[in-house]
């Protein structure tokens, strides 16, 4: 197992089949099954305790799975010890070797693979160049900034051309500007190396920005897998819609193509999904799909010529946040509320406490089953 590195390393497919991990009577993850394509960038997204890190630990071998199987490139990892899995990993907090220089840190995986000295020197130089730290190779980790340590951790994880790169909240300790810069670099490195990446984060913006696909975890289970756009536009449940992006939610009940709330009845005939079931439900609309106007404004007419009336509802402004290119209104509605985003084109809709009217195209509303009901 001494992978000869080159610039065009490609990743391997990762398969999880019914992976379950229990600690005593506590089930950390249950029946996790998914397939990640070679070279794909997949993010595990979820709140803390959702099982995303446990799943990663099972892949890395830090936890023994209670049941199920993990396959990398068709070969089972499940019973392999940690050091034989041949994975690249960027740890939370970096886990650099503090008693070694940057160069020695990066050479460590190559030395374990018993590569000839010339090959080690070449691969370390390549990794250093990839992350832009060539002139820092003789520094100790303590002499580096957070962003530089992050880059060393990344270089150490990719230098031996691993078929799978695991990243455990690698950017959580960095400030926002640096985080966004490193996100771009991670994307670039992923494109250049073509390795399969599993990236764990609780930050939905990070997940949306980086991933080919996102796996959303909640309470030890996968709740939805999809591209960032699918998750944002077509969340399958309330948890995903609230965890990925902002939204306006209205509680009510749904039956036969009609959503009823205290504020009125809404036909879902034109909605992107008109479910077959009936029962307690939430209607979800994304903030940028909603128009907001003063309460005295009359309900606007439908703009798409479908003949369907635009849905509208009255509410009260609860909070206003100015974010530069837009104004975010937190609006309270009968049976719900949420965030509405309005382009800042001068003039205001009203102050906190002012009554407003929200309106949206029926096609932009989604009906989701209410889990708490």
């Amino acid at each position: 197992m001494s992978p000869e590195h080159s610039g065009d390393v490609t990743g391997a497919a990762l398969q999880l089949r019914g992976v379950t991990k229990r600690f005593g009577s506590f089930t950390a993850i249950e029946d996790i099954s998914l397939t990640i394509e070679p070279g794909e960038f997949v993010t595990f997204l979820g709140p803390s305790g959702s099982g995303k890190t446990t799943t990663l630990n099972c892949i890395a071998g830090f936890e023994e799975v209670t049941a199920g199987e993990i396959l990398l490139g068709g070969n089972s990892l499940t019973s392999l010890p940690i050091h034989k899995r041949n994975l690249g990993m960027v740890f939370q907090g970096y886990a650099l070797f503090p008693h070694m220089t940057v160069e020695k840190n990066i050479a460590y995986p190559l030395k374990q693979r018993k590569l000839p000295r010339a090959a080690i020197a070449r691969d370390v130089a390549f990794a250093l160049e990839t992350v832009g730290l060539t002139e820092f190779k003789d520094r100790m980790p303590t002499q580096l900034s957070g962003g530089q340590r992050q880059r060393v951790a990344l270089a150490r994880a990719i230098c031996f051309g691993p078929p799978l790169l695991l990243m455990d909240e690698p950017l959580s300790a960095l400030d926002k500007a640096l985080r966004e810069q490193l996100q771009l670099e991670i994307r670039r490195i992923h494109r250049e190396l073509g390795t399969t990446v599993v990236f764990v984060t609780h930050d939905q913006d990070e997940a949306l920005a980086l991933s080919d696909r996102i796996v959303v975890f909640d309470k030890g289970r996968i709740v939805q897998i999809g591209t960032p756009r699918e998750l944002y536009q077509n969340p399958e449940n309330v948890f995903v819609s609230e965890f990925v992006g902002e939204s306006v939610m209205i509680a009510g009940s749904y039956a036969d193509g009609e959503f009823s709330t205290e504020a009125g009845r809404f036909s879902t005939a034109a909605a992107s999904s008109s479910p077959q079931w009936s029962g307690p439900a939430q209607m979800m609309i994304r903030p940028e799909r909603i128009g907001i106007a003063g309460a005295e404004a009359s309900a606007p007419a439908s703009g798409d010529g479908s003949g369907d009336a635009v849905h509208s509802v009255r509410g009260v402004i609860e909070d206003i946040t100015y974010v530069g290119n837009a104004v975010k209104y937190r609006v309270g509605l009968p049976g719900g509320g949420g965030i509405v985003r309005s382009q800042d084109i001068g003039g205001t809709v009203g102050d906190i406490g002012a009554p407003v009217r929200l309106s949206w195209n029926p096609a932009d509303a989604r009906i989701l089953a209410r889990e708490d009901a």
Partner: protein
Amino acid sequence: MTTATRPAGSGAPPRARRGLGPYGILVLPVILIVVLCFVVPMLTVLVRAVTEPEPGLQNFAWLFASDHTLALIGRTLRLAGAATLITALIGYPYAYAMATAGPRVQAIMLLVVLLPFWTSMMVRTFAWIIILQNNGVLNAMLTGVGLPPQSLLYTQTAVLIGMCQVLMPFMVLPMVAVMRSIDMRIPLAAQTFGAPPVKAFFTVYLPMSLPGVLSGALIVFILSLGFYVTPALLGSPREQILPNALFNQIVDLLNWGQGGALAVALLVTVGLAFVLVYLVTRALGLKVNVAGGAQL
């Protein structure tokens, strides 16, 4: 890659203000005690070493000319070295187990290691006499399982056993302090990158815990150079070590001159130990705090 060269979020932390400020006066009592009870008597000993019975360096000439004193110094160093080595070898696995144990087990292990601390020196030493004497507990056990009895009491081995027990906490506690600060993801990272567990330990965990080993070793070595009661009670007068010879010279023979020279020899040995550890740590790029709270 122009952006990569810019150290993000760098900037040295603000330097601590020099001087002590208005509360500096609170340090005075401590300084006074140290000067009166430590610096003054020590200088007296030094002065007497070069003035008694007459001014000159004859006491040091005696020190280096006599086979007896050189053997004394050699024996003392060997004993201190052996005590350091043994406490390190026994203490390291113990400290590792303690640092990685849960809080309950950790508290119990701390209690066990501190137990000799809380026992009176005399009680502890006489307990060893009872265990080690010819018809003692140890020999009863040995003969009980059919092994020949050992004559351990009043030997260097008995001294070593007694010293190691007393010195164990000084070795274990600095080790635990360092080991507890080690992020366990780091040795895990070594395994992830292809090192089998044993190799990950020797290439990553051991070097990272070395500051604790060094500061523990320094403390134990220096303390064992000054051990008096244990060697006096468990050892043989024919195999004296420096502190006991020193005591003889000054208390029994009232020979302040030669006693002083021995004291200087002891002091210089301690100083050399400090210099040695300093050089080792600097060569390895480590920071060692001799007070025990070592860090990397």
